[in-house]
């Protein structure tokens, strides 16, 4: 039996504005998402902000009803049988919210243990196990409001695991977490998957997805644009080279000029304070150093590094192509 089955899931949000004549606005957040996750698999859902990742997760974990389509978790329909689904899932989301911050970690876990039906006899042992797993032993009696974001995130994970869920939904768990805490988080998630828990993870961090996920679906504009192993996604840009160029003050017109250089397949910019890192994807072996750098005419440049394409490059290429692509594409593993 599959752990998760999503079949043509759609979700439309309706909002009304104005009075007395209200205007109805409809936003299609998810437009026919189909995928399957096997038991024990660590499945990643990647996409830009507003792509439909969280909406998809919320339909799968019973918080939102699909507008159309169906989804099942271990055979239980998420719309018709939400309680059976809730017994088998854990839900963890990133950020500061979702905990009673004027209470201690222990009080939070005791309360949620009751809500998740953890037996009175097992509670103490289970909470101790989880505090140990997420490294909060010794801090469990402190109020959560004094916790760092990393500690809160670890407490979230402990909360989500109280009832030994078969499927764990992790919605951007590492958002705003420092690198050391993020590494610990990745280790915890990998351990859970190794122990047989099915994990559906959404993240913006490509290295995290590359390291953890068995398979990845890239979602943009409410549709799945690519689905496959990290390796197979990377192979989509295997015919390219990447130039990382440090620039200071490269405006949109400069980036457009770079994109127009013959042989350039795409360019993305990441701002890092005063400096920008411009990643330019070119045809493999095209040796475009000189014309690309010439396109930066008048912009102060720093280091220029040529490298192999990464998952992030594949992701950027998929998302940039998304506007022109209507149908989801299955990438062979």
């Amino acid at each position, binding site marked *: 039996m599959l752990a998760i089955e999503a079949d043509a899931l759609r979700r439309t949000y*309706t909002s009304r504005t104005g009075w007395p004549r209200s205007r109805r606005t409809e936003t299609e957040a998810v437009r026919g998402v189909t995928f399957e996750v096997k038991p024990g698999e660590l499945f990643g859902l990647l996409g830009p902000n507003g792509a439909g990742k969280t909406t998809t997760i919320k339909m799968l974990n019973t*918080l939102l009803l699909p507008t159309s389509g169906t989804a099942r978790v271990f055979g239980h329909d998420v719309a018709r049988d939400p309680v059976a689904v809730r017994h088998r899932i854990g*839900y963890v989301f990133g950020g500061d919210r979702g905990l009673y911050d*004027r209470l201690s970690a222990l009080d939070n876990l005791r309360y949620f243990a009751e*809500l998740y039906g953890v037996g009175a006899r097992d509670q103490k042992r289970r909470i101790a196990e989880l505090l140990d797993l997420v490294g909060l032993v010794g801090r469990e009696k402190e109020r959560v409001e004094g916790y760092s974001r990393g500690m809160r995130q670890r407490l979230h994970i402990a909360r989500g695991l109280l009832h030994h869920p078969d499927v764990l939904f992790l919605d951007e768990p590492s958002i705003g977490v420092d690198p050391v805490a993020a590494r610990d988080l990745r280790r915890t998630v990998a351990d859970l998957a190794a122990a047989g828990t099915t994990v559906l993870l959404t993240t913006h961090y490509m290295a995290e997805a590359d390291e953890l996920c068995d398979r990845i679906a890239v979602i943009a504009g409410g549709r799945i644009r690519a689905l496959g192993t990290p390796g197979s996604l990377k192979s989509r840009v295997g015919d390219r080279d990447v130039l990382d160029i440090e620039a200071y003050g490269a405006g949109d017109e400069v980036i457009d000029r770079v994109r127009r250089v013959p042989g350039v397949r795409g360019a993305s910019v990441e701002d890092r304070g005063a400096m920008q890192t411009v990643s330019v994807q070119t045809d493999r072996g095209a040796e475009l150093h000189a014309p690309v750098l010439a396109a930066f005419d008048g912009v102060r440049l720093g280091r220029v590094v040529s490298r192999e394409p990464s998952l992030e490059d594949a992701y950027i290429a998929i998302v940039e192509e998304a506007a022109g692509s209507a149908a989801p594409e299955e990438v062979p593993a």
Partner: protein
Amino acid sequence: MIRVLRLIGVGVRTHVSYMSRSPIEITFAVLVPLVYATLAVYLFRAAGDPDRLLTASVGAGLMGIWGSVLFGSGGAVQNQRWLGTLETLVVAPTPLALVLLPITLATAVIGTYAMGATVLWGVLLFGVPLDFAHPLLFLVAVPVCVLALGMMGLLLAATFVLLRNANALANPLDTPVWLLSGLLVPVTVLPAWTHPVSWALPTTWGARAVHAAASGGDVTTPLLTAVALGAGYALAAVLVLGRVERRARAAATLALA
């Protein structure tokens, strides 16, 4: 059954602890009823009713409990939204009614601060004598009244799950309900057409029991009526909550945005 009672117990303890640790919430829970109590004592004195000053203090305390339940139930659901916990509560396999009942009971428990504060305020500031007609029954009537109001709060909370701006509904319900329930002035002074509404409110019977325990009269009958009505409201809430939850999932009102 034991699991349910345990869940309610742990839930009430958790939410009372949480609400009690907010200095601003406790300040309001205590201060607002003191203003009511002061006004009530002066009104009763001006009306030439100095013998009923204890009724005024107790009535103001009841208004405090009702205010806490009303704004607490709306505020609690809204607070869970702000905290981001409403989704984690809903995604738990426990029925939503059993998730919300401890929250509404906790708001009623917090409201009892108001009763203590107004009675003490009356004694210290206005020299109101503590000559309860049935002191022991008063100590029983107040928590039972709190329970009945907490159960009524569940029905309020059920509707507040659907509304992102739940407090907007709570405001216009405050004064009419305490007026119709005879918390401060007897319902007999209200127009006859309002009486059926008054009789349908657990607050009316809870207030009648608490006032009777303070000033004399039958305590048991109104107290049992308050509990029965409260249970009826809670049952109605349980019946509608399944549908409410489904509508909230369809309308996406469980989260802030």
